[in-house]
């Protein structure tokens, strides 16, 4: 049995392809793996870097609780969430989510569901460093609307 951690917060850059390859390995009953990789945008030079703060022991627990709910809701075989913290340069991966299920629909939807929550409600604090200094940012209306799609179902 695989006993790897399913929620990883890391201050170091990671390689999404390597994570996906390892996540797919050794599965006999999983028919579908969906994955999502979020990259830091340069915003036409407005974002020199992104800084993400997490509360270790609190942030990972909250993500784990939500991911377990997603596992039950979409009958997942497995999942992996890797999230950067600290200073992140444009082009670097911020988040990687992979979901494994019997069939594609559950894998796709669970990945989407996890990302909507991670983007809007996960306990991170985000600072954008730009040409005019740094500012703390909050979820956009779009992030909130995306997350609330799942509440009505």
């Amino acid at each position, binding site marked *: 049995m695989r006993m790897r951690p399913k929620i990883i917060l890391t201050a170091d850059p990671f390689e999404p392809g390597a994570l996906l390859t390892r996540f797919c390995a050794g599965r006999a009953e999983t028919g579908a793996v969906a994955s999502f990789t979020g990259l830091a945008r340069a915003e036409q030079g407005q974002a020199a870097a992104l800084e*993400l*703060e997490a*509360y270790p022991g609190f942030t990972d627990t909250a993500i784990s609780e939500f991911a377990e709910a997603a596992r039950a809701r979409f009958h997942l075989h497995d999942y992996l969430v890797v999230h950067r913290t600290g200073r992140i340069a444009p082009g670097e991966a911020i988040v990687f989510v992979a979901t494994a299920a019997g069939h594609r629909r559950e894998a796709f939807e669970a990945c989407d569901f996890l990302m909507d929550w*991670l983007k809007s409600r*996960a306990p991170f*604090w985000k600072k954008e460093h730009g040409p005019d200094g740094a500012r703390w940012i909050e979820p956009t209306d779009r992030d909130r609307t995306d997350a609330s799609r799942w509440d009505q179902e």
Partner: protein
Amino acid sequence: MARVLLFGRLADQAGWRDRAFEATSLKALRDLIANGDLALGEALSGPGVQVAVDKALVRGEAALTAATEVAFLPPMSGG
């Protein structure tokens, strides 16, 4: 001594993010912090600021012991 952690804009405002305080309740802790920095005291009670005691969210009052970790969490941004 309770260990107090500040996150996000609260840490920037305070100029510190991890400090120990002699307080046996959240109320006493808030008063102690406000005595040293009134604006910070107000910010800690500001809209959307949540409090976690030993990594669990609490509402209202809580008793603090020597080993308690208190975190003040401004509105979360998502990742």
